[in-house]
C-alpha cells in the first residue's frame, strides 16, 4: 500500500517538473505564478520524503522509473524530459531528503533550458556538475564520450606489447648494488608565507582575462615575421571587444581602443594595420555593441563614470546613431543621463545625425536631443532647433526656447518674440527667460517694447511681474530710469491694473538694488494701495539690506 503511495508521490514530482519547466520558461523570477510553481514542486518533494529518504529516478530514452515502476513515458521528441536527460548520458538522478528549495530551483532552471536553441556551450551534465549539488546526485554513462570504442583496448595492447625481460631485471638488480644509497630526502615545506602568497595569486587571478588576451593580440600584430595576417588579428581583437562589452568590462574595451588609437596615430606603423584598427573602433560603436552597453548601464550595475567617459571619448561618430537609439529604449533616469552625456561628447562629431533625433516620435527623446544640442553649444544646431519650435509637445517647445536662450544671437530673437505671444503661459514664460538669458540690447529692447505696449496691461499680474524681473537683470541706467518712470507715472487705466504695473516696477527696482531708487520707493511705502505699498516696502528693504 505504502509503495503505491510512494510511486504516486514520485509521479506527482514528475508532473510538477513538467509544469515548472513550462512556467520557468514563460515567467520572470519574481512572478507569483513562478513562485507558486516552485513552492508546489518543493511541496511534492516534501510529500515524497515521507515515504523514503531519497528519490532515485532511473532514466531511459523515453521512460523514467522510480524503483522499478514506470512513472513517466513519452515517445515524442519535443518536451520529453526522459530524452532531455538521456541524450547527454544521464542514467540516474537521485534527490536526497535534505534537498533545499534553492537546490531544487537551480535544478529546475537547468531543466528549463532549451539546449538546442540557446547558445549554451555546456550540456545538462556539465551544468549539473558545475552546480555541485549536495543533495542531488546523478550517474552518467561515459560511453557518450568515446570517440573510438576500441581505442583503449588497442592502446593498452600496444603499450604492453613488450614485457620486461628477466635479464633486464637482473641487470637492474645487480646495478642497484653499485649505486649510492639514498641519504637525504629533500622536501619543500610550505610556509604560511607561501600560503599567503598563494592567496595573493588567487586574488590576481580573479581579474578578467580578456585584457590579457588583447595584449597578446597586439603583440601578435607586431611579431617580426608575419605569422598572423592583420585581418585575422583585428578580427580577434573585435571579438575580444565584443566579449568585454558583453561582460561589462569597459576598462578592457577602453584599453583596446586606446592602443588602437595609438597605433592609428603612429607614423611608423603600416597603413594596412591602421585601416584594420579603425574598423575595431567602428565596431565598438556599432549598433549591437552600443545596445549591449545600453543594457549594461540600464541594468543598475555600478558603472565607473570615468571609465565610461574614456570609452565614449574613444568612439567614432558611428556610435551616435546607436546611442540615440538606446536613448529611447533605456528605462532608468540614471542610464538616460549617462547616454545623454555620451551624446554630448560624440554629438559635435556629426551634428546632422544627432539632429535626426529631433524627428523622433517620442517627445522625451526630442527633448533630450535638444538638451544635448544646448550642452554642445554648436551654432550649427540652431537651424535644426528652430524647426522644432512648433513641436506638438509643450515640454519640447520649452526645451527649445531654453536652448535658444543659451545660444543667443539675433537669429533667435524673432522666434523668441513670437513665442511671447503664444497661447501657453509656460511657453511665454520660457521665452521671456530665454530673452533674459541672451542679455543683449536687442533682447532688452524687445522686453521694454512689450512692457510699453498698450496691451501689456491686459496680462495677468504674475506674467507682468516676470517681465519686470527679467528686465531687472540688465541693471543699467536705461532700465533703472524706465522703472522709476513707470513707478512715478500717473496713469488713467483702471485702478487695479494701474497699481499692478507700478508694483512690478517697484519690485524690479528692488531686484536691481540701486540705492538711488530708495528715494522714489520710500514715497510709496505708505501708499494707499496695498499691492503697491507691499512691493515698494519689500523693494526698499531689499535695497537697504543689500540683498
Amino acid at each position, binding site marked *: 500500500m505504502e509503495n503505491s503511495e510512494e510511486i504516486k508521490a514520485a509521479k506527482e514530482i514528475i508532473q510538477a517538473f513538467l509544469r515548472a519547466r513550462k512556467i520557468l520558461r514563460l515567467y520572470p523570477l519574481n512572478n507569483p505564478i513562478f513562485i507558486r510553481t516552485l513552492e508546489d514542486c518543493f511541496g511534492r518533494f516534501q510529500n515524497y520524503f515521507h515515504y523514503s529518504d531519497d528519490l532515485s529516478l532511473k532514466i531511459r530514452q523515453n521512460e523514467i522509473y522510480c524503483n522499478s515502476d514506470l512513472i513517466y513515458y513519452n515517445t515524442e521528441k519535443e518536451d520529453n524530459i526522459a530524452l532531455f536527460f538521456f541524450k547527454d548520458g544521464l542514467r540516474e538522478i537521485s534527490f536526497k531528503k535534505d534537498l533545499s528549495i534553492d537546490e531544487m530551483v537551480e535544478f529546475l532552471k537547468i531543466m528549463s533550458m532549451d539546449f538546442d536553441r540557446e547558445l549554451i556551450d555546456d550540456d545538462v551534465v556539465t551544468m549539473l556538475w558545475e552546480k555541485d549539488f549536495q543533495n542531488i546526485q546523478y550517474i552518467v554513462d561515459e560511453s557518450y564520450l568515446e570517440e573510438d570504442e576500441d581505442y583503449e583496448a588497442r592502446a593498452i595492447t600496444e603499450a604492453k606489447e613488450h614485457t620486461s625481460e628477466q635479464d633486464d631485471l637482473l641487470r637492474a638488480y645487480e646495478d642497484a648494488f653499485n649505486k649510492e644509497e639514498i641519504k637525504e630526502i629533500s622536501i619543500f615545506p610550505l610556509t604560511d608565507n*607561501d600560503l599567503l602568497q598563494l592567496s595573493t595569486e588567487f586574488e590576481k587571478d580573479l581579474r578578467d582575462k580578456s585584457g590579457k588576451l588583447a595584449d*597578446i593580440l597586439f603583440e601578435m600584430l607586431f611579431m617580426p615575421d608575419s605569422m598572423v595576417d592583420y585581418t585575422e588579428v583585428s578580427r580577434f581583437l573585435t571579438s575580444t571587444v565584443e566579449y568585454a562589452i558583453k561582460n561589462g568590462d569597459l576598462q578592457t574595451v577602453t584599453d583596446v581602443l586606446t592602443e588602437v588609437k595609438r597605433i592609428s596615430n603612429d607614423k611608423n606603423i603600416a597603413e594596412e594595420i591602421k585601416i584594420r584598427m579603425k574598423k575595431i573602433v567602428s565596431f565598438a560603436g556599432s549598433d549591437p555593441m552600443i545596445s549591449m552597453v545600453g543594457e549594461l548601464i540600464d541594468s543598475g550595475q555600478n558603472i565607473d563614470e570615468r571609465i565610461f567617459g574614456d570609452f565614449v571619448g574613444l568612439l567614432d561618430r558611428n556610435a551616435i546613431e546607436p546611442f540615440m537609439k538606446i536613448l529611447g529604449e533605456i528605462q532608468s533616469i540614471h542610464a538616460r543621463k549617462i547616454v545623454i552625456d555620451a551624446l554630448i561628447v560624440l554629438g559635435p562629431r556629426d551634428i546632422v545625425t544627432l539632429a535626426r533625433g529631433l524627428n523622433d516620435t517620442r517627445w522625451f527623446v526630442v527633448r533630450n536631443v535638444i538638451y544635448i544640442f544646448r550642452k554642445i553649444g554648436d551654432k550649427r544646431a540652431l537651424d535644426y532647433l528652430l524647426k522644432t519650435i512648433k513641436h506638438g509637445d509643450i515640454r519640447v517647445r520649452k526645451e527649445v526656447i531654453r536652448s535658444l536662450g543659451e545660444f543667443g544671437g539675433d537669429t533667435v530673437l524673432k522666434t523668441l518674440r513670437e513665442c511671447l505671444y503664444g497661447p501657453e503661459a509656460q511657453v511665454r514664460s520660457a521665452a521671456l527667460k530665454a530673452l533674459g538669458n541672451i542679455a543683449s540690447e536687442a533682447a532688452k529692447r524687445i522686453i521694454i517694447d512689450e512692457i510699453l505696449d498698450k496691451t501689456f496691461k491686459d496680462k495677468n499680474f504674475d506674467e507682468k511681474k516676470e517681465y519686470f524681473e527679467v528686465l531687472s537683470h540688465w541693471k543699467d541706467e536705461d532700465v533703472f530710469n524706465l522703472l522709476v518712470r513707470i513707478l512715478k507715472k500717473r496713469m488713467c487705466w483702471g485702478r487695479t491694473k494701474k497699481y499692478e504695473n507700478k508694483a512690478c516696477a517697484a519690485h524690479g527696482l528692488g531686484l536691481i538694488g540701486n540705492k538711488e531708487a530708495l528715494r522714489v520707493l520710500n514715497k510709496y511705502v505708505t501708499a494707499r494701495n496695498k499691492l503697491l505699498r507691499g512691493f515698494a516696502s519689500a523693494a526698499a528693504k531689499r535695497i537697504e539690506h543689500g540683498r
Partner: protein
Amino acid sequence: MAGREEYNFHKSAQDLINQFSVVIRTAHIHDTNNIAVTLAVDKLVKIINTQIRQENNINLTLKGEFFYSNDYRIRYSLEFLSNFDFLIGEFKKRELGSVIFNREVGPEDVKAFIQAFIVSASSETPYDSIREGVSGVGGISVDRLKKIVEEDFLDMRKMIKKTYFNAVSYSRGIINKIKSGEKVNIKKAKRIIESMVDHILEEEQILLGMTAIKNYDDYTYYHSVNVSILSIALGQRLGLSRKLLTELGMAALFHDIGKMEIPSEVLNKPTNFTDDDWAIIKKHPVWGVKALLKLKKLDDITIRAAVVAFEHHQHVDYSGYPRVRKRLELDLFSRIVCFADQYDAMTSARVYSRIPMSPDKALSIMMERYGTQLDPLLFKFFINMIGVFPIGTLVMLDSKELGLVYESNQLFLSRPRILIITDSKGKKVDSHVVDLAAKNADGEYLYSIIKTMDPGKYKINLAEYLL
C-alpha cells in the same frame, strides 16, 4: 571561494585539525575534566564556533588520506604533518568518517564527544560506541568511514583508465577534425575534463599513475592529456575550485594545439632540430592562439586557453618564446601548465629521444630552472605533488626487492606504495603492492627505499605494471 577568503578558510580548517589532535592527545593522558584537557577543549570550542558562525555547520570528513571540511580538502603545511597523521590514524582506528557540528557547541558538548571518542578505542565496535556516546550530545553527530573496498577500487581503476583513454582518443580526434575543417565538439572536451577533475579529487594517484606510462606512439595526444592531468593535479594542490580546475584542464589540454601547424617532417624528425626547425617550432604558441580563437565564440575557457597557448614557453624570466615587446606577468594557468609540460615532455619518449628521462632526473633539471624558468612558489607544490619518488621510479627496498613506485603518499613523501616486481634475488615475480608507511608491532617501518634507478635504462615497461 577565492583569494583571502580561501586562505582564511584553509587556515581555520588547519587550526581545527590541529587543535582536535591536541585535544585527543591530551585526553589520552588525562581525564577529560583535567585542566589541560579543559584548556585545550576551550580553544577547540572557540575554533569550532568561529567557523560555525561563518559556515553555519562544519562537516569534517576523512576521505582516503585527506580531511575535508564542508567538502573542501584541507591543505596543510608540513609543520602540522604529525597532527594530521595522528588524527587520520585515530579516525581510521575507530572507523570514524565524519564529525558534524550543526550548531555552536559548548565545552561540555565537546568533552562528551571526546570522552566517547577515547572510550571507543577499547570497544570491539568503536564506531558504534562513539555514535552511541554522542547520541545525547546536541549539535554533534558522526558518520561511519566509507571504505573503498578492493572491488570498488578496481572498478575505480577501470573507470579512470577509461576516462584517460577517452581523453587521449578525443585529443587525437579533435586535432584531426580541426585539420580537416570539421566542426569540433567542445562540450565533450569539457565532460572529459570534468571527469578527470572528479578523479583527481577522489583518486588522484591512479590518474597520475596513468601519466607515468610514456611508451605510446601518439606522443602529441598523450602529452596533451598528461599535461592536462598534471595541471589539474597541481591546481588542486593549490586549492583551485572545481570550476577553475575545469578551465585549467581545458587550457592545458589545448596548450600545444598550435603544433598541428608544424610540418610533420619537422615535428617527427628523428634527429636534433636545426635552427630553422626551431624557428618553425617557436611559432606554435602564436599558431595555438589562432587555432583556439577560430575554434569557437570567445568565452572564459577559450580566452584562458589562448593565453596559456601563448605563454607556456615564455618562462617566468621571459627567457623563452615568443619574445614580446611589453612584458606581461604570466598568467597563473600558464605557469602551472609550464611545469606539467616540461615534466611530461622530459619524461616521455619522443621521436628524437626514444629513451625517456627518469622522473628524478627530470625533477633535478627542473630544480635548476627554479626561479628562472619556473615559478618558485609553484615549484614547491609541484615537487610535493610528484613526490620525492615519482610514480614509475624504479627502486630497491632494504629487503633487496626491486619495485616501482605505484602511488605517492601525500603525508609521507618518502613512503610511497611500491609495486614489487622482483624478489630479493632479482628474480621476476608476480607483482604485488607494499605500503612503505606500514609499521611492525614495534613501530618500525617494514620497508624503506634505499636506491633509485631509471626504469627506462633497463627496458622495464611501466605499462606492463601500471596499466
